[in-house]
């Protein structure tokens, strides 16, 4: 593991580190609870008097619901309540902002409990609450649903055909640039076009042009903890939701909108969250649990099983992408064109917008056109998955780049250095980059021991790929409460999915001049902290860290003013530096002044909020060596190095962990993972054995290289880390497979049967 940290000390002296806390590796504050089994995740929450729910799900991928008869379930001994969509308020045609972009409430409500149609196998139709889970499951199976089965639409291109069965009668094609919508129902929910320069001229200037078509399969986030919701609808109308979620406030908004209750009547208590990666933002169980609780008069807990998680939550889309790129005689890109269709699942909302912005994000391209389509198909409604939309796009673009390099006889790394996006590069969708660190990640790979170690074995190959993600800012709030002994509690609204409590506490500690261990961070419920957006978009370390920084500034101002009062001196003569308040003839450490102030006057509470949107954007470049078994098509990874610009690494161990974990998710996506559907639209591998995520035996160590090009838009230069590393792996693997055995793979996953198929085709 190597760290490029020359930029860290850029502003200070070359010898002394710029920070005292930032860049160190303290034990995470919640660590002990998590290694002793004490931490309470969603299904560990036991609320007094709670009963258990089970959901009846559609066996069909596409059908009209003709009738639902719940009478037998209701009569089953031990059953306490049964609900269908009739128990949720009519959503009308409202579109609401729910912390994850605008949502058509009718779609969200129908996704929780189907109204008139089921749009994918596993779509929730009804729910039962009973004395125990076994009774609830038995009773759910007694609910009689009459379906009119319709032909399933399982492929994005087929769904776009004029005569394709239409999933949603209320969906019309929206032209993104004008906001105008089409006049007839369509599976195409949105059409996006971005243009820059003169495409025709660009291709005319090119000496080499490559155009290819790519297909990617639906894949799932694969968090180990299934979705859970425990809800009490109290007699006074107050609703409490205990759930593992990436956004307590987003759950609160969704519940308020779906149940037609005021926000203040919903309290969301975050359980520890067992992975999310974008998939634990939408509600799937809480609305049904809420109306079951209202009927039963006691708290109701519903837990999904693994098949439900795969079939009925929000995976990331399968896609069809066509890429054409042109390069001049000097190896400079002259033009690029993309045509991208993403599967939204049953309801609109694929990440096509992000995909279309990301598709050429790594390159400085003078002339370009990107066209994107959001298309409904009979698969679960897709949701965010780590850099949503970007991985599909990068696989296509980077593979075309690799082919161009081969035609030119140019090193893929030198090509990228020549054409890389940098400060001032204008993306095809119009955004001009601020200071970014793509070139630095390329240089880090170029200088790595891995890159400079030749690969010589038979059927072995090396590949490189780069990737981009925007990162996000949005809103965060933090409250710092100073105790009478000088210790500090930090209340946060950002649920901690991978060590963010510590990354936030470290920024607060740095700002106030304390040690990370002096701070006790707590993730609290929606009644106990200010509004905080989701743990997503790689935003928490950036934005909630910034709020913590502001809380520290607020405390420092209060301490200075009150110390001046205490010492009876002019506040202008008092300052706060390096963990101490300093007056003309006196100084006290934070702890001393905190104890002193606790003896008289108001309590010391710091308030920090942030809503900054300069997360800076981040890039990664990955290098992989593979060996392909020519008899089976199986790809083994021999060595993997991932360089990423994270701005400033607050806690380097967790930054490395994000890079390693993201890379491995990308490896799974690239080599193995896919939703396998039969002709009836039924997923045939809805379990972890057959939807096989990587195990530790499939992998070598993943060597991260942390590159630090500080983000000028953050007090400590943070950019955010989590999403970028999933983007490059499929493309880097494709290039490595080609280098190893000379076959190009245009479809994900590059699983043994597909690789073998290409090898046999090449032989014959």
């Amino acid at each position, binding site marked *: 593991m190597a760290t490029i940290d020359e930029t860290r000390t850029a502003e200070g002296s070359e010898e002394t580190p710029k920070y005292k806390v930032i860049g160190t*590796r303290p*034990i*995470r504050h*919640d*660590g*002990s609870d*998590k*290694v*002793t*089994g*004490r*931490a*309470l*995740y969603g*299904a*560990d929450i036991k609320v007094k008097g709670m009963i258990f729910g089970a959901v009846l799900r559609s066996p069909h991928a596409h059908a009209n619901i003709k009738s639902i008869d719940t009478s037998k379930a209701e009569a089953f001994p031990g059953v306490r309540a049964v609900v269908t969509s009739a128990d949720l308020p009519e959503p009308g045609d409202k579109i609401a902002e729910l912390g994850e972009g605008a949502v058509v409430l009718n779609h969200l409500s129908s996704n929780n409990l189907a109204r008139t149609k089921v749009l994918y196998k596993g779509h929730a139709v009804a729910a039962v609450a009973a004395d125990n889970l*076994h009774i609830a499951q038995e009773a759910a199976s007694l609910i009689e649903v009459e379906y009119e089965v319709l032909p399933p639409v399982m492929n994005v291109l087929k769904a776009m055909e004029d005569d394709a069965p239409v999933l949603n009668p209320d969906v019309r094609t929206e032209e993104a640039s004008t906001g105008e919508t089409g006049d007839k129902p369509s599976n195409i929910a949105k059409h996006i076009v971005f243009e820059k320069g003169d495409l025709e001229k660009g291709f005319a200037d090119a000496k080499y042009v490559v155009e290819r078509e790519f297909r990617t399969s639906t894949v799932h*986030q*694969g*968090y*180990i*903890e*299934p979705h859970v919701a425990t809800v009490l609808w109290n007699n006074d109308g107050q609703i409490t939701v205990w759930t593992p979620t990436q956004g307590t406030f987003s759950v609160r908004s969704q519940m308020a909108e779906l149940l037609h209750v005021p926000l203040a009547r919903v309290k969301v208590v975050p359980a*520890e*969250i*067992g*992975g*999310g*990666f974008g998939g634990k933002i939408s509600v799937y169980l809480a609305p049904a649990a809420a109306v079951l609780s209202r009927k039963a008069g006691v708290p109701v807990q519903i*837990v999904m*099983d*693994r098949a439900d998680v795969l079939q009925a939550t929000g995976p990331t889309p399968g896609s069809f992408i066509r890429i054409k790129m042109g390069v001049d005689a000097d190896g400079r890109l002259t033009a690029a064109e993309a045509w991208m269709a993403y599967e939204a699942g049953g309801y609109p909302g694929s990440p096509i917008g992000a995909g279309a912005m990301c598709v050429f994000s790594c390159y400085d391209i003078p002339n370009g056109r990107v066209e994107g389509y959001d298309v409904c198909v009979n698969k679960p409604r897709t949701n965010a998955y780590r850099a949503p939309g970007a991985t599909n796009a990068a696989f296509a673009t980077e593979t075309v780049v690799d082919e161009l390099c081969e035609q030119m006889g140019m090193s893929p790394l030198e090509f990228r250095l020549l054409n890389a996006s940098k400060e001032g590069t204008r993306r095809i969708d119009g955004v001009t980059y601020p200071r970014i660190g793509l070139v630095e990640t390329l240089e880090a790979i170029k200088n790595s021991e891995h890159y400079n170690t030749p690969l010589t074995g038979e059927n072995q190959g090396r590949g490189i790929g780069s990737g981009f993600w925007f990162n996000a800012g949005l809103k965060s709030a933090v409250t710092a409460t100073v105790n009478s002994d000088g210790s500090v509690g930090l209340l946060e609204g950002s649920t901690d*999915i*991978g*060590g963010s409590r510590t990354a936030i506490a470290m920024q607060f500690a740095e700002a106030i001049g304390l040690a990370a261990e002096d701070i006790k961070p707590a993730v609290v419920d929606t009644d106990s902290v200010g509004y905080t957006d989701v743990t997503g978009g790689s935003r928490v370390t950036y934005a909630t860290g910034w709020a913590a920084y502001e809380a520290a500034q607020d405390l420092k101002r209060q301490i200075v003013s009150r110390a001046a009062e205490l010492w009876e001196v002019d506040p202008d003569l008092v300052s706060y530096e390096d963990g101490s308040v300093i007056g003309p003839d006196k100084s006290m450490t934070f702890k001393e002044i905190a104890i002193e102030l606790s003896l008289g006057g108001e309590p010391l509470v710091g308030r920090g909020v942030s809503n900054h949107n300069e997360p800076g954007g981040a890039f990664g470049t990955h290098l992989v060596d593979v060996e392909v078994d020519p008899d089976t098509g199986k790809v083994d990874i021999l060595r993997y190095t991932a360089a990423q610009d994270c701005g400033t690494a607050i*806690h380097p*161990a*967790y930054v*490395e*962990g*994000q890079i*390693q*974990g*993201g*890379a*491995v*998710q990308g490896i799974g996506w690239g080599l193995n993972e896919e939703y396998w559907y039969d002709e009836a639209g039924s997923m045939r591998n809805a*379990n*972890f*054995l057959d939807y096989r*995520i*990587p*195990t*530790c*035996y*499939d*992998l070598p*160590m*993943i060597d991260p290289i942390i590159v630090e090009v500080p983000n000028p838009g953050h007090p400590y230069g943070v950019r955010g880390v989590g999403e970028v590393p999933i983007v490059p792996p499929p493309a880097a693997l494709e290039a490595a497979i080609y280098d190893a055995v000379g076959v190009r793979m245009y479809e994900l996953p590059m699983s043994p049967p597909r690789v073998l198929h290409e090898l046999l085709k090449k032989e014959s």
Partner: protein
Amino acid sequence: MAKKRIVTATVNGREEEFLCQPRQTLLEVLRNTLGLTGAKEGCSNGNCGACSVVIDGKAVNTCMVLAVEAEGANIETIEGLAPVDGLDPLQEAFLENAALQCGICTPGFIMSAKAFLDENPNPTEEEIRFSMAGNLCRCTGYDKIVRAIQQAAETRCAQSASCEKETV
């Protein structure tokens, strides 16, 4: 519904007697009857290892064991691993190596690793990866988990004399 049975087993060194239905898994009983929620339910069919505990010295997926089968068994769960005043070397190593992100797989990993290191105190990286392949982690990419188990093996070896380096 079949009648409930009384089952007696040793759980974390104490003899426990519990009632269960024949259809209940050991995982369900550990979590819901005995209140030991450290073992997690990730898949209910033996694929993810999040419910791993050690039974009679072997790492076992408790979602694949019926509670009635535990009669007379010696069950060790994550709740019983740490000494009162500290942590087990495996727990320490997971913290020091940042070998967890969300942490849901951690109890299962630690218990599987305990059974594994009890049998093979001085493993190679390959042996660790092979033996831990039944425990899934989606956050870490396994790198830091493997390193944590390597470190724990070293610590355990240093603490006991019974750790001769095997020569092949």
